């Protein structure tokens, strides 16, 4: 096992290519009454473009916090987060939000679909927020719903869908606006094993197809066979498991070469 933290800000990535996600010296603590609870300190991480990384850790280890910091939803106490060369920590709240709406997709444990929008409208929403609201966008949303096997449920509201169906809609929504990075926070946490497997399969398949970087926080081991890299977050330290996962160099390396030519 290779330890990724403490690294004094050095990333846990040994890849020679420029990573899509680069986290350096990240620290976060929360106040609980008079005491301060440190979630992590001086954390470093980088993930190459198109890679699928799994972030493992127990409940309360700080996985969700890390995803929130990476997406710009929350701000770190120290350190930097850069996605595709844009340093999010240097942006204002509004700029971070606008960056998020264009470049980041989210899949939550609790599905978090908008209950007042239909399945199709939920998938359309990120497209519309990114500035598109035409026929082409609707076609794409329908196609994505088809790809997750829910073409016939396009007009259904979330409360009429099963948990697995809701998460598949959420997956389609996360990828609809062609984000560069998709963050999934326990996407199978509310699902049974079989449904979780299906959702994970759809998510990885769609992400690989569109060459989107995928970072999944989970404690579900069934995610491991799909992943290029597996990272463990424990006691505020990030470490990489060796020999588990496919290693991103295989797939992403090919794409990097393709890009060079």
């Amino acid at each position: 096992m290779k330890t990724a933290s403490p690294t004094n800000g050095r990333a846990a990535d040994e890849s020679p290519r420029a990573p899509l996600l680069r986290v350096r010296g990240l620290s976060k603590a929360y106040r609980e009454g008079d005491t301060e609870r440190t979630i992590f300190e001086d954390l470093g991480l980088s993930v190459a473009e198109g890679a699928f990384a799994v972030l493992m850790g127990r409940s309360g280890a700080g996985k969700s916090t890390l995803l929130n910091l990476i997406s710009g939803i929350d701000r770190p106490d120290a350190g930097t987060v850069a996605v595709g060369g844009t340093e999010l920590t240097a942006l204002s709240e509004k700029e971070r939000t606008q960056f998020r709406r264009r470049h980041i997709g989210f899949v939550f444990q609790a599905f978090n679909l908008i209950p007042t929008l239909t399945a199709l409208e939920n998938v359309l929403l990120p497209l519309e927020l990114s500035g598109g609201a035409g026929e082409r966008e609707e076609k794409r949303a329908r196609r994505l719903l088809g790809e997750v096997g829910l073409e016939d449920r396009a007009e259904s509201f979330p409360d009429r869908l099963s948990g697995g169906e809701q998460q598949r809609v959420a997956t389609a929504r996360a990828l609809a606006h062609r984000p560069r990075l998709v963050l999934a926070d326990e996407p199978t946490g509310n699902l049974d094993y079989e449904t979780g497997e299906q959702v994970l399969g759809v998510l990885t398949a769609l992400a690989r197809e569109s060459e989107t970087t995928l970072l999944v926080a989970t404690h579900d081991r069934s995610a491991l066979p799909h992943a290029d890299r597996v990272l463990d977050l424990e006691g505020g330290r990030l470490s990489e498991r060796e020999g588990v996962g496919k290693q991103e160099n295989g797939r992403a390396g090919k794409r990097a070469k393709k890009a060079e030519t």
Partner: protein
Amino acid sequence: MPSRLLWKSSRRYLTRHPWLMGLSVLGVALGVAVVVGIDLANTSADRAFQLSAQRLTGKATHQVVGAGEGLPASAYRRLRTEAGYRASAPVVAEYVQVLGAGRPFQLLGVDPFAEGPFRPYVGGGGAGDSAGVDLGAFMGGEHTALLAAPTARAMGEAPGDTLTVTVDGAPRTLRVAGLIEPRDERARRATRNLLVTDISTAQEVLGMGGPQGGQLTRIDLILPDGEQEEKRAKQRLQQALPPGAQVRRSDARTETVEQMTRAFSLNLSALSLLALVVGLFLIYNTMTFSVVQRRPLLGRLRALGVTRREVFTLVLGEAVLVGAVGTACGLALGMGLAQGLVRLVTRAINDLYFVVNVQEVAVSPWVLAKGAALGMGATLAAAFPPAREAARAKVSVVLQRSRAESAAQKWVPRLAWAGGGVAVLAGALLLAPSQSIWVGYAALFCALLAAALLAPALVVAIARALRPVMEKLFGVLGKMAARGLRQSLSRTGVAIAALMVAVAATVGVGVMTKSFRQTVESWLQYSLQSDVYVQPPSLVFRRSTATLAPGTADTLAGVKGVAGAHTVRRVEVASSAGPTQLVAIAPGPETRDTYRLKSGNAGAVWPRFRGGKKVVIVSEPYSYRTGVGVGDTLRLQTDRGRAGFHVGAVFFDYASDRGVVTMSRATYDRFYDDRRTSGVALHAVEGLSADSLAKRVRTAAPPGQKLVVQSSRGLREASLKIFDRTFAITNVLRLLAVVVAFIGVLSALMALQLERRRELAVMRAGGMTPGQVGGYVTLQTGLMGLTAGLLALPLGMALAYVLIFVINKRSFGWTLQLEASPGILLQAVFLALVAALLAGAYPAWKMARENPAEAMREG
């Protein structure tokens, strides 16, 4: 701008919670309706008064008026012959009651030959206006009058028919000589309640006839344009006028009369705003609820990249929709409400100030625009904090409901501090050296706001204190109910604050009314010391300047059983302090006891007063309004010219908010040529009851003279009846505020029900019976009502204090004694409790019937 889908999502949220939006819309609608209703009623009364003033004034720019009630007709002749001023017209005008019409008419006596340039509808130069008028018959006939054709048709009268009018209780007949056919709507309204006669008929009907042409009410003038020309003309006219007569602008009297009701209208408007303030809480409650309930949803949107501004715009957009629908409904409702309110306002004005005949509600676009702006403004103001909260919430924590409540709890001390600050501001406003009623009301509204801000902290404290009691009384359910109050503070706090404000307003206004009534009652007790009071019937209860027929006072003084009689004369005169109601009394030995002096030395002033010296005493409102006090010299316009009178004392008086100046009859007779009397007070001989004497007086009244004869008890009762009638409108406003608050509590409880579906479903699944769920909700509702009621008591008393000692003082100048009976206070707590329990009945029923499985799935 938020995207199309975001608006769609928002719209669906609103339509999925129809009761939430419905109650909000109703809250805005009721608030706007009350404000618009009162405003329309006030403006309709104003408009009606202006119309009647215009129809009397016509195109006159100035008028000549006498020092007292009239002007000798010889003044008019001198004006035309000596000063050679042709653009002048004599006028005799007074309100009379027309038998069968059920409303007062203005009797206008004019000289048709002089009228041309002034009131075209009367004839002369006004060709086309008067149809079917036989001018010869009108001029030469005995007791003939002109009537507007639509009015005549409505009354079933035609030319040649006879009308009976009563003046100061005496019946007179007039023959309809012709009809005035108004050319347009304006003329139709102007002539609706008008009876036109020639000068001599009017004088005869009104008892203003006499040697040398009798008396005129005034002479209308059209003075040339331009400051210099006007000044020269005035000087020329003044030389031809008798001493005491004055030339003044025609609109001067209209302004004076309008000033009379200004404070009255303003107080009504301010009270009507109360309903809107309570409505504001309701909107705030709804919008806060909609934000809190959608926190997770808003969090998801923010995570997906929706900016803070878009979230803010979205929430505010919903408020705009609620506000627009509510305001539109409120405007329509307000117009309907005005129909009822205008009657109450008109009756109060007629009781207190002057005759005004409001036939219809004048829907002014300005009033509607003001109501719309208030409705929308209040909605947006109330929605602003929740919208801001929604936009500023941290996305990483927004997904958790408990965090929302802990954030609300965190705000409690801050709100309490802010409340303390606003309370200090209210105090500073009260202490500010100002006479402004607006400043008084600003302080009052600050006090309400301060209490509302302090409410959450007090709710927490009360809930904590009541928890052990509730547990002891109702077991675990009681404990849960008390704890729930604190845990859902963001909703319960606002609902309690809304109910508290409404109930406090009830307490405040109730205590004020009660104190006022007690003060008036005790004043009537000591001021009505004679046994029987006689006066002619009057159209204005409190400002009767009607006169008794000559000789009536002497006749009544001679009735068997009368031990003593004192006359009263009331007139309007001009003074250095503005138009003044002058009361001349013939003081008896007990008169001194009927006046309680606020300042001045009774021992020094009464001998000089009785002795006919140049001494007057002034009432408290007069002194407050004009700044005239003991030791000052008040200059009054008299028939001997301007004369200075020493102000000997200021006395408590609650008969008129305009105030009066009182002088002895002997002094009055020295300075005024008027020998008429407005009323007589009679003392019964020992052993004869007041009621028996009243009976004798009624039978002794001269034929043709209708008299209002009242024993002191009867007069006291009549006065209090008028008092209660005047406050009827205040009670309506109080009730409306409570209705709005009731809707607020209902809305808050419905919100809680929606929010607690899952929690209660879990309890149901765990074995709680539907009855227990219903009981739990009812307990909590009762607790909310009780808390609101308890908090309303100190606030209500504070409001009563401000209303009595600041607002009332600044509006009317009266000193009132604060009287808070335990009954009113108990009623308030009871009202809050009942309102809350009633509002909670449906949510309790609904929660008890909820299907736990469904609730857990959707919750």
